[in-house]
């Protein structure tokens, strides 16, 4: 592990007791984020990607149980941090951008009030300092007439502008790590491109690490340095972005890539690939590969598979019974079909 990693997580698990038994939405994920690097966590709804981010922020529901072999943030072990110490980190050192800019801003307070609150709470009580910082950041995220916007309410702004305000808010205290949970899902394609552009620029400028959580493989391909593909609470494939997209090894990754229509590649009106079936129930004792009931290459071995990833070069790894050669072959064959 190199020294510039700002976050190292090993074997993070989240368990939530429900009436039917114990729900295991996150079942051992490990990753590191280096300064200036973007890690994309991609997967379908219910795969545990959002809970992973909430677990990092210490924002899980009260009943949830979080365990990890290691959770180091800026060299501190944050596993046993009590609420007060976490609160001092949240918003200051690690900040979050949520999916819905419509619902994550408080409609009853002005933009300025909400922007300055976090600064005044954590950094300095000085109101004019906070105001200057808010104006500086609103301009940074491309909002014109920033000073006059401070007195506006969220409903007076469009979706794209609100998301820009959310981004400015997350930057108020100069965090080292930004966790963006589906930051562009609710936005138009044109605005999406702008927001992603902005995030990349700001990340360069402020040298932050970023965890981007999304289900859109198009977004992942364009912004990620490292990719984690999650399925049913585990990482099924991880590695550098280029390697994962050029050479998807896990049948699930390959399947997802075949599902999206790509202009110019797929023939118009032809059948899209699909991943049949639905995500499994994660309550109770779980064994083996959870993808086996949707996988075309499942065999009896999959029922008892340990979940130890097969590592190939450069940190590219996948968790499957297939050998890398077999996996590459099956992914390629399906790609043609």
């Amino acid at each position, binding site marked *: 592990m190199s020294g510039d990693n700002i976050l190292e997580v090993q074997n993070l698990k989240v368990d939530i007791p429900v009436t039917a038994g114990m729900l295991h939405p996150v079942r051992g994920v490990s990753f590191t984020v280096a300064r200036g690097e973007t890690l994309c966590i991609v997967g*379908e709804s219910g795969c545990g990607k959002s809970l992973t981010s909430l677990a990092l922020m210490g924002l899980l529901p009260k009943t949830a149980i979080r365990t990890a072999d290691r959770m180091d943030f800026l060299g501190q072990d944050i596993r046993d941090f009590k609420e007060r110490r976490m609160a001092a980190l949240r918003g200051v050192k690690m900040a979050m951008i949520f999916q819905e800019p419509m619902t994550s801003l408080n409609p009853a307070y002005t933009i300025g009030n909400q922007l300055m609150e976090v600064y005044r709470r954590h950094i300095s009580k000085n109101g004019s300092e906070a105001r200057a910082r808010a104006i500086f950041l609103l301009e940074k995220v491309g909002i014109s007439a920033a000073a006059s916007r401070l007195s506006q309410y969220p409903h007076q702004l469009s979706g794209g502008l609100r998301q820009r305000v959310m981004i400015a808010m997350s930057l108020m205290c100069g965090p080292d790590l930004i966790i963006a949970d589906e930051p562009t899902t609710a936005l138009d394609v*044109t605005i999406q491109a702008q927001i992603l552009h902005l995030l*990349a620029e700001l990340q360069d400028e402020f040298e932050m690490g970023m965890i981007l959580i999304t289900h859109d493989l198009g977004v*992942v391909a364009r912004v990620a340095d490292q990719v984690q593909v999650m399925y049913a609470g585990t990482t099924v494939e991880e590695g550098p972005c280029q390697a994962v997209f050029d050479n998807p090894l896990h049948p699930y990754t390959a399947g997802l890539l075949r599902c999206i229509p*790509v202009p110019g590649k797929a023939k118009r009106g032809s059948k899209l690939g699909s*991943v049949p079936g639905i995500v499994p129930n994660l309550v109770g004792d779980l064994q083996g590969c959870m993808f086996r009931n949707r996988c075309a290459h499942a065999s009896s071995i999959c029922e008892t598979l340990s979940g130890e990833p097969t590592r190939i070069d450069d940190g590219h790894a996948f968790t499957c019974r297939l050998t890398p050669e077999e996996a590459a072959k099956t992914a390629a064959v399906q790609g043609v079909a």
Partner: protein
Amino acid sequence: MSETALRTVDVSCVFEVSQGFMKGTKPLRAVNGVSLNIPKGRVVGLVGESGCGKSTMANILLGLQKPTSGDVMSGDSLYYGQQTGYLDRKKIARRIQPIFQDPYSSLNPTKTIHSIVCLPLRIHNIGDPSKWDKKVYDILDLVGLPKRVAQSYPSQMSGGQRQRVAIARALIMKPEVVICDEPTSALDVSVQSQILNLLQDLRQELGLTYLLISHNLAVVEHMADRVAVMYLGRIVEEADANTLFDDPRHPYTKALLGSVLTPDPSLGVPDTHLGTVFPNPIDPPSGCSFHPRCSECMDICSKKAPKPSVEGGRMIECHRYQTNEAEVA
């Protein structure tokens, strides 16, 4: 061109928006003189950003919203030459059915799937009530749902299953035109591809006509035969899908196409040059409404609104291509 299933002629829809207490109202032109042809058996895609009037168009075509002016005509196969805007809603509903965006809010949570899918038959009193059960099971089978779901409630189903129910409910009337308003944008990618495949299959099997409304150009490019691009209530470019995607002309179409993120890691995030300011539809810009965001803006654009010019099968509203045409002519 083949037979027309549905046609709008110069349709406008104006909403009066209150400006506050005692300040009167201002008109908002949600749809501003749109003429759209939907040929029978084809898929017409309608794309544009939010707020451009695509969903108002859908409501007008469904008879849920009366246009302020203009005609909605149904082709020979429908109500010949009549204006559906003045037709009985029930009559429209028998021929034109919607599939809405969000399968979580478009199904009544207190009704069983059977009752949801059967409701159109009951309202329109179609056929013999003793045969309704069979019809419901047939249609569920057609959209790939097992029989047993008939007695479950929407909350017991996944997003993809719910969207299948919505499709079943639309198809049980044996409509000729299905208006799909963002049918897959609330769904996961693997489910999206299942639903798109299903829509393709059903179209071939039942000879349906689709109006596919979406902001996802990759989906539209995959499904549609003909595509109309809408901006601030007007169609700015309309052409066959091949022509439009291979050779987009209008700067807005180019920007939209440029912002589609294909899963190709060697390309970065595209820069659309569109600016951050979406114009206020109550107070639209002078001349061409796109000119404040346009990267190819000329002097004339802010003064005069462009007229639509038709060349081959392509309609475009842009000063750049009007001059060309004038020269050619």
